[in-house]
């Protein structure tokens, strides 16, 4: 084990170097660029055996990843924002074909208006594309999640999208504990693809036309694969604990067990929320935090259990789903808790386009939901936080 100072992007590149994937096909986009750029240096310096493909667009990058993965390779890429959006057509392909591609997403807002800073609109838009989605809070989790993602992807035979907050994590230098190369190598093991296209002794076809007579059966298979992935994420987290000493599950609780009121957040906001929880506790208010790590598959049972004693829940969404009743995380949480909890659940849409979220903001949320727990009255189920 070594301790380094790294930002999120270079930590991703460092993890990729240790994983030494067969193929990396990528295209630069802020705030992801450093990851692929740094990794291409490892390639140029001969530190990895990877076939590096500098494509002409993200659509091509994902297409090359799909081809390489179908061929039987271990494949990694990363993107953000408009890059992820440009992959749209091909983004849906790896999951049903059971191709374990890993793609780190450094979450960034979508145009318009054009903006390069963090929110979750990009990966939330991809939530129905069949990718497992994991959110990391900081550089350490970004590094840890990428290594685990390889193992999760190959066990579940599904693509995995580890996400972290653009700029806030991707460009902030933090203390990072890295594993020894050998530990990473042993942890991920040798990839044995089930149906490699390059196995010329067993010729197969990927991606033939599929009509109404079988398409639905293939979607049912995909549905099952995602259901089964929940346990795999948990198991891999436990295994990773053994080599890292760091605990990973579908979610983590902070002062939640005796909390009356709680906030749910993804990503870097959880760190800010913990300080707000401590400040509320000092004032004698039983506040708690649920940091959600796994967004797809959605860990419904774990959320029900974690929130069973909570009276009011504020779901923090760093994206909007225009025209729906609340943003994506809110809809999921509310649906999971329906008839399983008596808690009032409210939604705060915050931090769009990198708008700062402060301890004071989250203390304000706790004050709002404390009031709801006292009066039982909800003024607004969905509100914008920190907007003028």
């Amino acid at each position, binding site marked *: 084990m070594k301790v380094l100072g790294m930002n999120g992007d270079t930590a991703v590149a460092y993890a990729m170097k240790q994983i030494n994937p067969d193929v990396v096909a990528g295209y630069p986009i802020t705030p992801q660029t450093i990851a692929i750029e740094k990794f291409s240096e490892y390639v140029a310096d001969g530190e990895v055996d990877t076939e590096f493909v500098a494509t002409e667009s993200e659509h091509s990058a994902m297409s090359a990843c799909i081809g390489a993965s179908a061929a039987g390779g271990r494949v990694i890429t990363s993107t953000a924002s408009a890059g992820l959006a440009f992959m749209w057509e091909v983004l849906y392909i790896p999951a049903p074909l059971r191709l374990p591609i890993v793609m780190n997403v450094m979450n960034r807002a979508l145009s318009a208006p054009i903006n390069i800073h963090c929110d979750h609109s990009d990966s939330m838009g991809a939530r129905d594309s069949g990718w497992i989605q994991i959110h990391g809070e900081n550089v350490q989790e970004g590094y840890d999640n990428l290594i685990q993602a390889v193992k999760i992807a190959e066990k579940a035979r599904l693509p995995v999208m580890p996400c972290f907050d653009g700029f806030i994590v991707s460009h902030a230098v933090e203390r990072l504990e890295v594993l020894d190369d050998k530990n990473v190598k042993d942890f991920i093991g040798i990839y044995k693809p089930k149906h490699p296209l390059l196995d010329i002794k067993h010729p197969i076809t990927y991606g033939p036309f599929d009509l109404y007579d079988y398409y639905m059966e293939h979607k049912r298979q*995909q549905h099952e694969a995602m259901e089964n992935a929940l346990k795999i994420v948990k198991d891999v987290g436990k295994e990773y604990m053994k080599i890292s000493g760091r605990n990973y599950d579908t979610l983590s609780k902070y002062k939640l067990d005796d909390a009356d009121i709680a906030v749910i957040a993804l990503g870097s906001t959880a760190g800010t929320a913990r300080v707000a929880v401590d400040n509320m506790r000092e004032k004698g208010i039983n506040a708690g935090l649920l940091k959600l790590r796994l967004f797809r598959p959605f860990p419904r049972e774990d959320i029900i259990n974690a929130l069973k004693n909570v009276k009011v829940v504020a779901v923090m969404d760093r994206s909007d789903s225009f025209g729906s009743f609340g943003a994506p995380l809110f809809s999921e949480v509310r649906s999971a808790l329906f008839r399983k909890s008596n808690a009032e659940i409210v939604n705060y849409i915050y931090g769009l386009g990198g708008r700062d979220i402060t301890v004071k903001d989250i203390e304000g949320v706790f004050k709002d939901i404390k009031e709801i727990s006292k009066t039982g009255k909800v003024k607004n189920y969905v509100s914008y936080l920190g907007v003028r």
Partner: protein
Amino acid sequence: MKGWKEIPEGGLILEPGNSIGYKTGSWRSQKPIRNEEKCSHCLICWAYCPDSAIIVENKKIKEIDYNYCKGCGICANECPKKAINMEEEK
């Protein structure tokens, strides 16, 4: 028809050349009927058929393979002897 647990994942075809098991002749709405008396065995229909459904034996047309003939009518259109008639599939 097989259920979702019994078929290869994601529509992969694991058995090479198994398209022979897909009888595309069931798509046909018009059926080519060959008149043996008019046919000169010039093999133009054999050359034009996009589905290799004209079966030739000893340089002579033996039959039309209705398992794979989609009834496109190209053979009837190209035949110089007007020896192939398209008839409504019943």
